[in-house]
């Protein structure tokens, strides 16, 4: 039995030897077939699609993509648009505020929850639930709460402060902070969770040592814990930053870019030009600028994270 089996196997392997060249390619063939969808997505969509958009951002595509070379014309036009400048400014203000407040609030909440308190799970559940909701829901709720005729402004006025004004969604100067309130409400829970995981990873002995030395808790956090949590902070930073660049749904739901163009953001510019303005070239140029923004954030991070040891 065994002999017949091996003898049957020999010619088969002999055949495989005969067609030698593709041998390497066909090793682990099922694994390679199984990875085909992922490879297609990585190369076809992510690399291919990105390259396609960058190339076409140098053309004068209008209603349909055309390969008529136009050099930097789209970019020149883009940066001369007031709406684009406002979008970039908004993104910068929203981005910096969101980054700072999310990190601070996220860390403080995580530190409070880490003080061995009761009902920790309850508090954590409360802080994190907005993260499960979509930006559309978030935007619509806060639109309602910040409604000057019914919401916060009216309530404070009815308490006796007749001249109190707080109508961020109707005031072009502060509308971006109205978005910020909603964005923070939705996103801080996530960062808090990540910070909490980081705090839990810190050795209990460090706390004991600090207590023995009589260092107050707040000083321990600033001098010892935060420097130790640098990788966690960097991860949180990258997460927040890549989320900020994508900011779109929240604006559409909460303000639709208004009043006027006061709360426009780059992602909305791209969508409007591509799918409503029939000005594909502008859409491509604007989305390429968004990619550049992400690259500016990501490349230093990649160096920090992988630089030195990996060949990346």
């Amino acid at each position, binding site marked *: 039995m065994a002999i017949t089996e091996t003898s049957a196997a020999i010619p088969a392997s002999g055949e495989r030897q005969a067609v030698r060249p593709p041998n390497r390619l066909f090793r682990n063939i099922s694994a390679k077939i199984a990875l085909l969808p992922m490879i297609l*997505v990585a190369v076809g969509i992510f690399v291919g699609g990105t390259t396609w958009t960058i190339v076409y951002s140098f053309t004068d595509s209008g209603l349909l993509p055309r390969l008529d070379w136009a050099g930097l014309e789209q970019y020149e036009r883009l940066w001369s648009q007031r709406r684009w400048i406002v979008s970039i400014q908004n993104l910068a203000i929203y981005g910096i505020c969101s980054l700072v407040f999310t990190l601070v609030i996220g860390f403080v909440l995580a530190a409070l929850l880490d003080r061995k308190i009761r009902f920790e799970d309850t508090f954590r559940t409360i802080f994190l639930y907005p993260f499960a909701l979509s*930006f559309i829901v978030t935007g619509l709720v806060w639109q309602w709460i910040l409604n000057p005729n019914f919401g916060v402004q009216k309530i404070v006025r009815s308490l006796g402060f007749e001249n109190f004004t707080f109508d961020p969604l109707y005031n072009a100067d502060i509308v971006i902070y109205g978005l910020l309130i909603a964005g923070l409400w939705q996103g801080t829970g996530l960062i808090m969770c990540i910070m909490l995981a980081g705090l839990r990873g810190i050795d209990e002995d460090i706390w004991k040592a600090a207590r023995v030395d009589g260092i107050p808790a707040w000083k321990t956090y600033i001098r010892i814990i935060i420097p130790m949590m640098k990788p966690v902070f960097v*991860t*949180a930073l990258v997460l927040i930053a890549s989320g900020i660049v994508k900011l779109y749904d929240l604006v559409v739901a909460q303000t639709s870019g208004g009043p006027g163009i006061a709360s426009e953001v780059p992602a909305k510019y791209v969508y409007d030009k591509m799918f409503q303005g029939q000005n594909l070239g502008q859409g491509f140029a604007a989305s390429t600028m968004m*990619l550049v923004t992400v690259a500016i954030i990501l490349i230093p991070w990649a160096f920090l994270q992988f630089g030195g040891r990996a060949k990346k």
Partner: protein
Amino acid sequence: MTNPAQLAPAVAAAGTLPRLQDGPSGPPPRRALSGRNIMLYGTLIVVSVYYLLPLYVMIVTSLKGMPEIRLGNIFSPPVEVTFQPWVKAWAEACTGINCDGLSRGFWNSVRILIPSVILSVSVASVSGYALSKWKFKGSELFFSILLLGAFIPYQVMLYPIVIILRELGLYGSLGGLVLVHLIFGLPINTLLFRNYFAQVPEELFKAARVDGAGFWGIFIRIMLPMSLPIFVVSLIIQVTGIWNDFLFGVVYTKPDLYPMTVQLNNIVNSVQGVKEYNVNMAATLLTGLVPLVIYFASGKLFVRGIAAGAVKG
């Protein structure tokens, strides 16, 4: 049966028992109402109020009639509870010419969600398995590209995908949107499964290979039965992510196939007609209900999912 580790504290306690008679020892018990605790819990409670407020306002507003909303303030509980806004939001609210309420969007979302989740979780699990246990030359490179892709703004890839879907004849259909969700769910979920399967001992894998199991045999007989938790985590990420999506829904489908989020936005932000805030809030709450139920039902697994996706990424 008795665990020595469990016995140890009991022995220790018995050993210290006689000392109790000597008088109090150890640090004095902390008072529950110390200044530190008031600060701590006070801060947490105030912050909790800020986080809970919108949910409360949504519920309260959706249960009031319009006259009551115009007179009262948004925080006051309803004097007269009415479920009319909920009925209207679900079955009668108008978007454009269609007046069959959010139910249309809800069922569209369900029809998008189920195939998208099944497809993306299965493709991601198989990819993660192949990447962790069947590495070949170049597999890590493709994976790095996939992960980098997760950081590319979606806007960059929107139009190329429109062209691909048009070529495939899927543009504007639910099938096309399912494909898009598959594509963009792949990086995070593949990472999740890859990290999970990488922890499976190599010996187990080698033993199975010696016994003659192949790629699929090992996956189905060995990996699947031990990976329920990671499947649940991936499922949670995908269900909430796809349900909450707005951009892809609005770009890749037609108005009568819009998912719930897009329809919700169209109902609430429509410029015509009198604004019915109670109906709007009922509609908003309805849309948020699915992810909220998943969130509260899954508890710690949800946290684990985002922590796994974030910290390791």
